[in-house]
C-alpha cells in the first residue's frame, strides 16, 4: 500500500492504494464519488471517463498511483457550487440525451473535453469523437444533437419528435 495525493474536483484528495488500484476504484471506493461508472473491462465503453489535468481519460485504464499530483475532475465536479449545470449538462436534459443514465457521466465528460478542443464540431466530428463512449439506450441521436446544441449551433433542422 502506498499513499497517493491528488486534487479531485478542486479539493485535495488522498488515500492508501495498492499498485493495482485503478483510478476509477480510488474515485468510487475511496472517495465515494460514485458518479463515475464502470461498464466494461477492455477500455472501450467510456462510462468511466474523467479529466486528468484537463484531458479526457478512461479512469478504468489508469492506476491511481499514476494520478499522483494531478488534477482530476469527475462528473460531480462539473456543475457549479450552487448546482447550476454546465451548458453540456443542460443540453443533455433539454434534448433528452440520456435515458438510463449509466453511460451519461462518461458521455458528458467526453463532450466537455470535445468542445474544449473543438468549440464548433460538425455532426461527423461529434460522432467520431464519441467512438469511445457506448450508449445502449439513446441510439445516439439526442446525444449528438445535445452536443451540437451545447456548442451553440442551431439544431432546429434535426428531426426531433
Amino acid at each position: 500500500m502506498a499513499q497517493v495525493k491528488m486534487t479531485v474536483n478542486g479539493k485535495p484528495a488522498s488515500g492508501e492504494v495498492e499498485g493495482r488500484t485503478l483510478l476509477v476504484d480510488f474515485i468510487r471506493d475511496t472517495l465515494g464519488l460514485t458518479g463515475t461508472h464502470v461498464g466494461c473491462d477492455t477500455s472501450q465503453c467510456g462510462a468511466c471517463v474523467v479529466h486528468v489535468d484537463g484531458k479526457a481519460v478512461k479512469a478504468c485504464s489508469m492506476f491511481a498511483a499514476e494520478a499522483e499530483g494531478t488534477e482530476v475532475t469527475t462528473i460531480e465536479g462539473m456543475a457549479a457550487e450552487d448546482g447550476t449545470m454546465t451548458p453540456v449538462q443542460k443540453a443533455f436534459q433539454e434534448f433528452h440525451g440520456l435515458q438510463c443514465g449509466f453511460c451519461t457521466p462518461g458521455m458528458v465528460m467526453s463532450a466537455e473535453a470535445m468542445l474544449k478542443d473543438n468549440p464548433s464540431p460538425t455532426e461527423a466530428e461529434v460522432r467520431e469523437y464519441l467512438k469511445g463512449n457506448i450508449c445502449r439506450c439513446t441510439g445516439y441521436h439526442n446525444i449528438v444533437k445535445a452536443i451540437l446544441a451545447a456548442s451553440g449551433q442551431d439544431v432546429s433542422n434535426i428531426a426531433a419528435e
Partner: protein
Amino acid sequence: MYAFEIERPSTVADAVALLKQSDENQALGGGQTLIPTLKQRLAAPEVLVCLSGIDEIKGVCTDDDGRICIGGGTTHGEVAAGSGAYPALVWMAENIGDPAVRNRGTIGGSLANNDPSACYPAAVLASGATVVTNEREIAADDFFDGMFATALNEGEIITEVKFPVPEKANYQKFEQPASRFALVGVFVAKFADGVRVAVTGASEEGVFRWTEAEEALNGNFSASALDGLSVPADGMISDLHGSGAYRAHLVAVMTRRAVEAA
C-alpha cells in the same frame, strides 16, 4: 488483477534499473492494452515500472536530417498534434482508438506490444523509421518479429522513434467493427529512393512489407501499377470478422486507396 507494486521512475536510467532487477518486472506505457490484460489476469508482474513520469522520453521534434523524432512516452494525441510535417502519420495517430485512449496510449507502448492489428507498426515499417532504445538504434525492418514479438530485450525501453518524412504517404485503415483496430491497415510511403508498403491487421506473422506492391510502385507510383497484384490468403488471419481471403482482398483494396490518396 494480481497484486503488484508500481514504481514511477523519472529517468530512463532508473526505469531500466528497476526493470533489470527482476524478470518479473514489466514496463507500463500508457496502459491501454496492458491494463485490460492485467484485469484478465493474463500477466502477473511483480513490479510495474510506469514510464509516464519520464519527461525525457516525451515530445515531438525534428532532427537535423529532417526526421520527426517522437519520444517513446509520447501519447497518440501528442503525436497527432506534433507531427504536422507528416500528415499521414498525424491521420494515423488521430484514428487510433478514441480520444481518451489517445490521451494515455503511447507510441512506445504500442510498438513494444506489436499487436498484429495495431496501426503504429505499419507506420514505422512503411516509413523505414528507426526505433531508438536505451541500448541501441533498431531499424524498422529489424524491429518487428511476428505477433506480439519484437527485437527488444528484457529491460530495454523505447526512448524515441525517428521517422523520415516521405514525399508522399497515406494510411488506409479498414476497421474491425468491434475493436476498431485495423482489420486491415495499409501504410504506403514514397521516398526519393523508393516506395515502402506496410500492412497491419492481416497476417498471422504481424505487420509485413508487401514487397511486390513496392516494386510495382517504384516504377509507377499509381494505383494502376497494382493491377493484378494480390497477396496470398495463406497465412492471413481468419476469424469471425473475416476470412483470410477477405483480408487478402482488403490488402489490395486498401493499398490501392492509399496510393490514390497519397
